[in-house]
């Protein structure tokens, strides 16, 4: 089904991605991530000593502070903080530095659709920049289902408002195995985090998952290239 999107993209096409790391000099790690016009800045400070009152002291703790572009902090910001915290807790290896807190501050620079996935991607890149040990990277993507049933990826704000349902999906990044035979005998690829609201059929959701997984492979490749490039640059500078 051919779909006309306003900026001329096809259904499964993502907006141009750009990522730069180590842009803030005081933070232990920082990254700026932009998908089209949506731009998010993430900074990581840590690990710092001590955990908060109700947290388990045998593990590291992650604290997320979300700063919106304008306005006061309200319920949507608290929800984003909670989602980011839980997603990053499942990605980081928490047993390496017990009884410490790592703070991640997310600043929204511009919101043009798919804000939460951009923030998750930015936070992961900032954690890589800070050198926090992680099991794998989290790759986040936003899918929307329109009233007529077609699914588009990575919507802009205007497209988001017209859609019937949207899903934020986070996958672990794709694995490039060094061994020639796949060490991947898993049945299906797992998802880490999925949020969908508004009424759709259950089948639509699984269709979104398929599209999302395919796109996450492309995103993982982008991340891999980006991380490899910057590491070779810094070795030259030294």
């Amino acid at each position, binding site marked *: 089904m051919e779909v006309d999107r306003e900026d001329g993209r096809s259904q499964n096409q993502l907006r141009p991605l750009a990522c730069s790391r180590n842009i803030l000099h005081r933070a232990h790690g920082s990254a700026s991530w932009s998908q089209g016009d949506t731009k998010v800045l993430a900074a990581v400070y840590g690990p710092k000593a001590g955990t908060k009152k*109700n947290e388990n002291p045998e593990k590291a703790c992650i604290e997320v502070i979300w700063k919106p572009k304008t306005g006061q902090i*309200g*319920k*949507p910001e*608290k*929800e984003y903080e*909670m*989602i980011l*915290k*839980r*997603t*990053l*807790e*499942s990605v980081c290896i928490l047993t390496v530095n017990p009884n410490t807190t790592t703070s991640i501050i997310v600043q929204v620079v511009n919101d043009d659709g798919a804000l939460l996935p951009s923030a998750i991607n930015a936070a992961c890149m900032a954690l890589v920049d800070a050198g926090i040990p992680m099991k794998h990277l989290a790759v986040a993507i936003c899918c929307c289902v329109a009233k007529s049933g077609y699914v588009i990826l990575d919507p802009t704000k205007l497209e988001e408002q017209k859609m019937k349902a949207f*899903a934020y999906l*986070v996958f*672990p990044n794709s694995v490039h195995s060094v061994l020639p035979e796949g060490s991947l005998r*898993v*049945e*299906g*690829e*797992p*998802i*880490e*985090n*999925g*949020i*969908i*609201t*508004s*009424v*759709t*059929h*259950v089948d*639509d*959701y*699984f269709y979104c*998952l398929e599209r999302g997984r395919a796109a996450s492979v492309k995103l993982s490749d982008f991340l891999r290239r980006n991380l490899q490039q910057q590491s070779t640059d810094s070795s030259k500078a030294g």
Partner: protein
Amino acid sequence: MGLPNASGDLSTEVEVDAFRRLFPLRFYKKHLFESIRPDARPLGRARETTIALGAVASANGSALAKIGSTTMLAAIKMEVMTPSLETPDEGCIAIDFHMPPICSPIVRPGRPAEGAPVVAKQLSDTILSSGMINLKELSLVSGKAAWMAYLDIYCLDADGALFDTALLSAVAAFSHLEIPVVSLNDDGKIVLSEEQGLSDREPVNKEKRKINLSSVPFSLTCVLHKNYILADPTAEEESIMDTIVTVVLDSSSQLVSLHKPGGTVLAYTSAIQDCIALTRQRVKELQKILEEGISGMEVD
């Protein structure tokens, strides 16, 4: 509730309650191995659910919902307001969720609970996007007056599955809601008519009417632990096993919302399908309980 003595570890030397507090994961592992939970529920069963409508007499609609020990009180108050210019013939619903210190030892006065704004936002997203209430029904005089429904949900006892109980109490309160009789007075303002039949003024709506609910959403929270799926967790289970999945289906089994905020267990498609299947069963149970509650009220 004895622990198997065959294993030679601490379980034989420590009392059951102490073992439960000190090694919660191992305590649960022993139970899950036998496909049962410490409160003798099978893994896929939710706790006992009750609904009482009309719990707050002065509110226009109210309900008290209990799932196991988790208790939520929902109350709706209606107020007349001028609708916005973009939607002149639609009313408005404002949803707020409170966790007062009575509900749990973690919540202290002065410092709002961490989970409260998240549940509040989830609730308002679910109720507004499920299309349960047609906002045009809340309109009185197009462009001039419409109803604003303030839905407040108070958590009285927080023992896990807060979102489920809150959604159930909200839905029950809306099904109990009766829109009061109002009439237009000489200044063009809407006033509440005290009695029906008192008539120098023409009432805008003739009698207290109930609101029409279509596609009512029901939810089930599950906890994923290794390859076990536990439906309707208690607070203890939620704190030990941190991967929580909430599925909201409406009465025609369409997916309204699926919420899985992170968590150590990665969910494969099969796990999600199992959660959705468990939720489908739960929707049927909840529909029956809600209908019994409503018919119980009407008998009075």
